[in-house]
């Protein structure tokens, strides 16, 4: 009659065993009250956990929505990605799936035009600073460990990383008279000479032109078009003068911005171009502010 007593007894034993099991495994986090951007790593999972795996978790939490589930630059969001001026763009493809030759093209590298891979420092620099005018924010509070993990994960996505040797960065000196008027004048003249073809003439109102990139829209045959930077209305991706200098000197891989065209320019002339571009940026900013104040 009292079988249910036996049943309860049996169930009780099982349950006690389960609870003992539950209590044996007590997760906790080692860090005290340090508040950091990024992932807190479980002690049981281990600080020693695979760096790539940790990077993958961070990638899912912070990068996947724009760079894609397969990291091929196909955004998760159906709204797509747009620049500040409303032009559709794609996030960087880390796997080489969309590139015509299966390459991974990073714009910001020290190898110069056509360089497929970025150095660790370049990647961290972009993650930390963000790319202005695009949805890429600067994750500036990210700890160095998390940056390492992210870079490790990104580098696990394309076999080319294994053989890639990061070159040491050349030393660059920012001239002290960067924003001086004479430099701006010199830069304007050089700009008219070398850059107007693609970038248009911002001061006379000629718009920049769109040119094909070397990669495709994922899943289609249509080549991605990209418009050259409009220096008056659009922010520079990396506005730091050193970055601007570097971009001009080394060109932008995967695009038609071939540094061979202006190989004869000296470093000093390029700094003048940087000055002029910075001048254009300020002009655009003032115009916009004026327009807003009038509203």
């Amino acid at each position: 009659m009292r079988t249910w007593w036996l049943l309860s007894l049996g169930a009780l034993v099982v349950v006690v065993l389960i609870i003992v099991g539950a209590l044996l495994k007590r997760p906790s986090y080692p860090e005290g009250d340090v508040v950091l951007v990024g992932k807190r790593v479980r002690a049981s999972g281990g600080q020693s956990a695979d760096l790539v795996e940790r990077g993958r978790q961070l990638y899912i939490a912070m990068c996947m929505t724009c760079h894609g589930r397969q990291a091929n630059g196909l955004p998760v969001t159906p709204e797509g990605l747009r620049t500040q001026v409303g032009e559709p763009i794609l996030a960087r493809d880390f796997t080489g799936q969309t590139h015509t030759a299966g390459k991974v093209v990073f714009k910001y590298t020290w190898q110069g035009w056509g360089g497929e891979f970025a150095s660790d420092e370049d990647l961290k620099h972009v993650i930390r600073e963000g790319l202005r005018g695009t949805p890429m924010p600067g994750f500036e509070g990210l700890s160095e460990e998390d940056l390492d993990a992210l870079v490790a994960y990104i580098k696990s996505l394309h076999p080319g990383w294994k053989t890639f040797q990061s070159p040491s960065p050349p030393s660059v000196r920012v001239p002290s008279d960067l924003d001086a008027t004479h430099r701006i004048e010199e830069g304007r003249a050089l700009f008219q000479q070398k850059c107007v073809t693609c970038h248009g003439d911002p001061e006379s109102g000629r718009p920049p032109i769109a040119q094909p990139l070397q990669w495709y829209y994922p899943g289609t045959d249509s080549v991605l078009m990209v418009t050259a930077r409009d220096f008056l209305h659009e922010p520079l991706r990396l506005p730091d003068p050193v970055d601007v200098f570097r971009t001009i000197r080394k060109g932008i891989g995967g695009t038609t911005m071939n540094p061979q065209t202006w190989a004869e320019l000296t470093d000093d002339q390029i700094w003048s171009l940087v000055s002029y571009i910075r001048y254009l940026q300020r002009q655009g900013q003032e115009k916009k502010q004026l327009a807003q104040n009038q509203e």
Partner: protein
Amino acid sequence: MSAASSAHAHELSFWRKYIFSTDHKVIGKQYLLTGLFMALIGGAFALIFRWNLANPGTLTDKQYLMFVTYHGSIMFFWVAMPILLGGFGNLLIPLMIGARDMAFPVLNMLSYWTFFLSVVLLVASLLVPGGGFSGGWTLYPPLSAIPDLYMGAEPGTILLLLALALEFASMLMGGINYVATVFTMRVKGLTFFRLPYFVWMQILAAFLFMLSVTPLIAAVFLLLMDILLGTHFFRVTAEQAGSPVLFQHLFWFFGHPEVYVILFPALGILAEIFTSQARRPLFGYRTLVWAGIIAGILSFLVWAHHQFVAGINPYSAIGFSILTVIISVPFSLMLIYFGITLAGGSIRFSAPMIWALGAYAMFIIGGLTGLPLGALTSDIYFHDTYYVVAHFHYTVFTIVILSSIAGIYYWFPKFFGRKLPERFGKWHAILTLIFYNGFAFPAFFLGMAGHPRRYADILAYNYLEEFQWVHQLMTISTILLFAVQIVFAFVFIRSIFAGEQVTDPNPWRATTLEWLAPSPPPHLNWGDTQPVVEHGPYEYAVNGELAKQGIDFLPQGKLYRLQKLPEEVAHHLGGKGEQSESEVEKATS
């Protein structure tokens, strides 16, 4: 089934009798058993994700959310609705109004099998590639509108939506059937204000469900169009803007009445148990009925209190908040009246009564803790935290588990002709209440601490780290709670087949009509007799002559032998009155 009910002159095949039966009692039992089985599955899902909360990292994030989602969906749509509406409604409504079956027996059977199909689809949605839907039982788009992109579970989502639609269709059929039955098939003398409170609550629930679920059916249709045809009713693309908030409006227009759809039958069960176990007439019967009607009407006007911080107009939020507070009036009235029914009674602490009292006490907590959520400023902080989880477990667990099991203990002798062990029932109730509070009450503190819901791993946050032990406590309570229910499941099944046979068709000395029928009632319920109602439903504490013999109640009606058998009864009984009489005797002896 007992030997008595098998003595049919007109034998049905096994399939027609137990599987594709049109008998309301068989369908009710089918609903009840399916619902209880799904409750075990839903509870097991709860265990799995609670385990993950105590030991983060056991499940993947996707699995965790999937189990959370399915736990919610199953408990609401595949446990509460079939047990309280399908099960108790089918089993009790015809008996309580003295009818022989539902108004549409075939529709009734169809309703169950549609429901069964929805269960199959639900299970299928878990097993398809990509796994089940993991966007919460509220199905909020855009997360659910582009499942393939956001969660990688497109077939699962579509199947879950279809399963929901089928479930709604099934319950709609049931609801129409209940209303039609109660409106047209009451026996002689049973006026509307002599209906047992349970029947009132059932038809109110049926009306609420019918009027509220249809907008959600429309919303599910639009959501399916979003998924399959790429429209943008609820999702936002670069060129075209849909409105995610519109879905929330449609969902909660259903969602709030839905809570009352399952709450009302539970209150009905409590009313039946309280009156018979406290030997007291239901205090303020008419007022209670009107309170139910008013609460039902008001429930259509408060839906946006789920969306105070979800982008609705702040002015309209004020209106919804005030209405929400006003809707607490009929419910507090119900609870107060139930309390008065208890006070002054002669309370028997039988197993169903302990369950019902526990449910009543938990309702008090659940109702009161709803106030900080309905009050709009405190809801800013509590919205989507564990406080909400605690609040709705105090209401919904009370409805779905405590009240249902109270009802099962109460009517089990009537349904199955056998008894559930009484002492086990008391221990079951007490242990369940302890462990239930052990998992639900700490959630209030988590909510106070600002712990958002549906977090797979709270250790991601500094300010939540110290509450990990609370999750472990809750997990242990949940394990114990589930273990107790497992034992109950064994006892329940054992009692169906090998429990002690009941000798008395009215073991609780209750008044309502179902206790006049034999236990279990035969096919077509009343044989060659028929009840005629002479009183209101709760004539307890009667000081008549019989009171001296210990009989302090007047049954709601009396049984009369029929002058001429109705056609289907005559057909079923083989057309001979003598045989049927012996059958009734057999069944009751």
